[in-house]
């Protein structure tokens, strides 16, 4: 329970004071930016999930729009091609009545050589309170966050992180998992081009925090370095170990969830894969291979799909596939993130006297 003083400063009652009728835990979001999920705790992830439930209800209304972010400027700054992430962030921000500005780097002053930091300063001077950013370079949003007075939401940076995708994956799993949303001990397999995948890296944080039995599987060349990370994860507080293997049969056996990753042809340099055809033959997700998984396995893909490469067309449209649910939930999860971050950003502006 929290009280709000007339000057707007929140006062939190001591955590020992039980909130009447509530769970007793202090649910609060304290991050100004969302750069990756490594610093986000499990209770905070659960807060995102609960807020997403409320956003789903908003989306079901005849007028799917609420005034929560009225007057908040959200700039969507994408240095890489994207359809679903960019559009779902835009729809999410508009559903919350934010003022949305879209910048595609290819048609902006970036093409004239403007630096990232200059662009961020310019966007801030033009009234942005939040920036949703995608960049081909891992870590770029961290640099942007150092030079921006508002909030940065990472919409994907290089190979590094894609936190909103991982959260919508988690929400979709919890919604559809037969046997309930508790992931403890449930086997989740992420299959494919793990090496280049920011989706996989962010999912490692959220799925291990959820207690899942996480397996990363792919050709050995596309798993490099992950075994060292897996070994170190056992020591990370709030997280568990995960399994890294090139043995597809072992990974798929009795799996509750299988998420196929896109083979990122644009990031594939010499020697990693002999050919797409060989990848499809050895690691493509087919109905036959899925036979080893649980009969009610959830099939996922973050999109965009190379059908016939990492996933067979009939698998993508199988009744057990929740791929389109992932897209739908993307809007609700991103509404929740914009809403929660807007609160933390308002707090920041006040404490800095701005």
């Amino acid at each position: 329970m929290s009280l709000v003083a007339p000057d707007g400063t929140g006062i939190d009652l001591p955590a020992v004071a039980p909130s009447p009728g509530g769970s007793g835990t202090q649910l609060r979001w304290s991050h100004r930016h969302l750069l990756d999920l490594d610093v986000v705790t499990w209770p905070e992830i659960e807060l995102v999930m609960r807020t997403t439930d409320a956003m789903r209800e908003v989306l079901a209304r005849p007028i799917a729009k609420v005034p929560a972010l009225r007057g908040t400027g959200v700039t969507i700054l994408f240095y890489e091609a994207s359809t679903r992430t960019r559009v779902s962030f835009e729809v999410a921000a508009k559903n919350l009545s934010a003022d949305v500005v879209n910048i595609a780097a290819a048609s902006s002053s970036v093409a004239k050589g403007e630096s990232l930091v200059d662009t961020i300063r310019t966007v801030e001077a033009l009234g942005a309170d939040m920036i949703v950013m995608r960049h081909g370079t891992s870590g770029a949003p961290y640099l942007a966050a150092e030079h921006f007075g508002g909030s940065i939401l990472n919409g994907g940076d290089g190979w590094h992180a894609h936190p909103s995708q991982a959260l919508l994956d988690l929400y979709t799993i919890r919604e559809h998992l037969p046997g309930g949303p508790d992931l403890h001990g449930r086997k989740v397999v992420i299959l494919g081009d793990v090496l280049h995948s920011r989706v996989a890296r962010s999912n490692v944080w959220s799925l291990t925090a959820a207690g899942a039995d996480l397996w990363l599987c792919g050709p050995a060349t596309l798993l490099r370095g992950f075994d060292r990370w897996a070994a170190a994860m056992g020591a990370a507080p709030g997280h568990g170990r995960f399994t890294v293997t090139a043995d597809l049969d072992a990974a798929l056996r009795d799996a509750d969830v299988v998420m196929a990753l896109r083979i990122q042809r644009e990031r594939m340099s010499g020697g990693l894969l002999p050919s797409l055809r060989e990848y499809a033959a050895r690691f493509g997700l087919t109905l036959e291979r899925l036979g080893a998984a649980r009969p009610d396995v959830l099939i996922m893909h973050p999109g965009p799909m190379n059908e016939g490469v990492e996933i067979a067309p009939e698998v993508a449209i199988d009744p057990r596939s929740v791929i389109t649910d992932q897209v739908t939930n993307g809007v609700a999860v991103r509404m929740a993130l914009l809403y929660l971050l807007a609160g933390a950003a308002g707090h920041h502006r006040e404490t800095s006297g701005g």
Partner: protein
Amino acid sequence: MTADEIRRATIRISHEIVEKQAGTAGLVLVGIQRRGVPLAHRIADAIAEHEGVRLPVGALDITFYRDDLSLIAQQPLVKGTDLPFDLNGATIVLVDDVLYTGRTIRAAMDALVDFGRPQAIRLAVLIDRGHRELPIRADHVGKNVPTSREEIVRVHLAEIDGEDGVDIERLVPSLAEPVAG
């Protein structure tokens, strides 16, 4: 206010609502999260008892419609809206525990009109503590309680807090107004 007084006030309000409408036709009850929701159910129960008609009851979360979202440090927890009926043409009785500045009711009316065009919106509250900041008044009031702004009115309901009762507390100097207006 004791549990008995809350019970009697709830029953009186239920009679007033039906009397004002000259029946129950077109009436729906909408409780404002959180303590307006159990109150709305209690009023529906009382009306069912003396009129033999069960009115539809909805729950309204006004969080996204607050006018102070940009002022407060932490986003308030969203508790969810559930309006399982068509609002168009209905006479809506909004139900809340405490009427104070009127800002919650302003937000609730904004939220309701996003769902449709009700015939009328009325307001029933258990406690009216004064200090309005907007031109809003209640149609049905359980009890008028004169307070100062330095006081907090705490409504306890069995469904949420385990017992019924209303307390007025003097604020500790470092604490100020509660979230619910």
